[in-house]
């Protein structure tokens, strides 16, 4: 009989830590990762030996970087697993850490994401199946094509799509862990370096380096370690899907988002309208519009109007990418999904400072990864 997270032992996020997302530097990945893990331990107010297992998310670093990093916290022999799932690597590591605790196998587990930009081959390039023009159609062009399709379908102005970037840069400017911390005007965004289709560089995520760590614990773990239960945030849903065949084959990211979000909302027993904040995979502006619609935060074709009304701003009906999202906060790949959980946790604890979404009780984290896969988690106060 298949189980969902809520059927198992309750799991809580009890510690959150970051190393700021930033442009490629000389800093070792070890320094990045340890900074995040030590901050998460301090946040949970526990010592490293209390952590019983570690999931290390990375997509660009080479094989097995985990123990060479974690040994500097003290080598107490905990099991370590590396997780690679493209952009969803961090979300996947978090899911498995949650499931290990929920299954009662551990009381305290760690998910840490760390990466540094590097050129890596995609598995799909080695399948031996040729493409007409795959070397000409990289991710930003895939999404530029979707933006063109969306704009034609709903008769919207492509310049309005840039409003997503306006909001997310503004949110990131209030986030000390964001790679881009500068407010931008709509004019700056629209008139920036042209990349592909209507996208300019400020409408695309800057892939950089960084780290994010989250510690999850059971109720027993919280009691035994004396963790402050009032700051523990429950994980009430974890849903994951991979791509199927769709009538509109090009819209697989949106189709996947719809299915995975629906499953997560069912697990948590709530509706999209109950969500106070959402962190989603806005690597390119158009994604936010498509995903908020597919998640059910507004009707199809209405995302621009909801955005213009401020519904997705901090303080709006549902703050979308209060962290700054992938466009503003950045997308170091391995850390990204874990960083979303960190942001939501801080928001639900009312510890998000200038970015605080008032009275936030429920938050949803969403990532898609090439392949394609999709992961959605829901956290509740």
């Amino acid at each position, binding site marked *: 009989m298949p189980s969902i997270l809520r059927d198992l032992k309750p799991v809580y996020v009890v510690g959150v830590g970051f190393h700021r997302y930033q442009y490629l530097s000389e800093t070792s990945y070890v320094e990045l990762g340890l900074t995040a893990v030590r901050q998460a331990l301090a946040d949970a107010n526990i010592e490293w030996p209390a952590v019983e297992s570690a999931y290390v998310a990375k997509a660009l670093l080479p094989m097995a970087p985990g123990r060479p990093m974690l040994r500097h916290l003290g080598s107490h022999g905990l099991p370590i697993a590396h997780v690679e799932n493209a952009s969803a690597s961090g979300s996947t590591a978090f899911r498995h850490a949650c499931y290990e605790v929920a299954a009662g196998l551990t009381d305290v587990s760690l998910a840490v994401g760390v990466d540094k930009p590097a050129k890596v081959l995609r598995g799909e390039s080695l*399948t031996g*199946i*040729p*493409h*007409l*023009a*795959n*070397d*000409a*159609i*990289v991710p930003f*062009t*895939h999404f*530029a*094509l*979707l*933006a*063109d*399709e969306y704009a*034609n379908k709903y008769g919207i102005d492509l310049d309005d799509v840039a409003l997503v970037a306006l909001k997310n840069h503004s949110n990131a400017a209030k986030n000390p862990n964001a790679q881009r911390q500068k407010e931008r005007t709509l004019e700056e965004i629209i008139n920036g*370096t*042209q*990349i*592909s*289709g*209507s996208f300019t560089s400020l409408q695309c995520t800057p892939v950089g380096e960084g780290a994010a760590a989250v510690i999850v614990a059971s109720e027993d773990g919280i009691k035994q370690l004396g963790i402050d239960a009032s700051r523990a945030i429950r994980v009430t849903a974890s849903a994951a899907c991979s791509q199927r*065949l769709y009538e*509109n*084959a*090009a819209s697989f990211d949106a189709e996947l988002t719809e299915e995975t979000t629906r499953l997560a909302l069912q697990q948590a027993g709530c509706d999209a309208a109950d969500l106070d904040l959402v962190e989603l995979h806005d690597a390119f502006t158009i994604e936010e519009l498509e995903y908020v619609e597919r998640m059910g935060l507004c009707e199809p074709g209405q995302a621009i109007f909801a955005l213009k009304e401020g519904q997705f701003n901090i303080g709006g009906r549902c703050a979308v990418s209060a962290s700054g999202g992938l466009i503003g906060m950045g997308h170091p790949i391995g850390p990204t999904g874990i960083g979303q959980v960190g942001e939501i946790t801080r928001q639900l604890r009312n510890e998000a400072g200038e970015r605080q979404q008032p009275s936030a009780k429920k938050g949803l984290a969403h990532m898609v990864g090439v392949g394609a896969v999709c992961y959605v988690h829901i956290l509740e106060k």
Partner: protein
Amino acid sequence: MSQLRLLKPNLYTSPDEKGDIQLMGGRCSCGYCFFPMQHYGCEQCGAKGDELKAVPLTGKGELVSSAVVHKHADERRQTPFVVGSVRLTDGPVVRTLLDVDTDVRLAPGTELTAVLVDVEGKESETFQDLRFRPSRLVTGGGA
């Protein structure tokens, strides 16, 4: 007609006597039509081997979306260039290069036809590669 040197001969044919180019797709016994042909297994039902048959797909379709690419990771590919999603008449949607000026904005639904254009190989030799062009601009058959 002199022998053409196709850049990707496992994906498309030379023009036939009417000037038509075909794409080398496949069809499974379950009815699923795909491009390009592959033998690993059907993405719809998982069937393999003789259940998967190579079938020529007509080099015609309609535009789903298009984009002008201004920056590209591979500097050998000159920018700007135009790419599109094309729904082939036989069903599959392909992502491909379009042979149109960068200042032309094509409407979705525009009828497109496969054509061959000269491209330069790694050692400056000339190959023919597939592009899609608005059918109304294709002369000499097929349009």
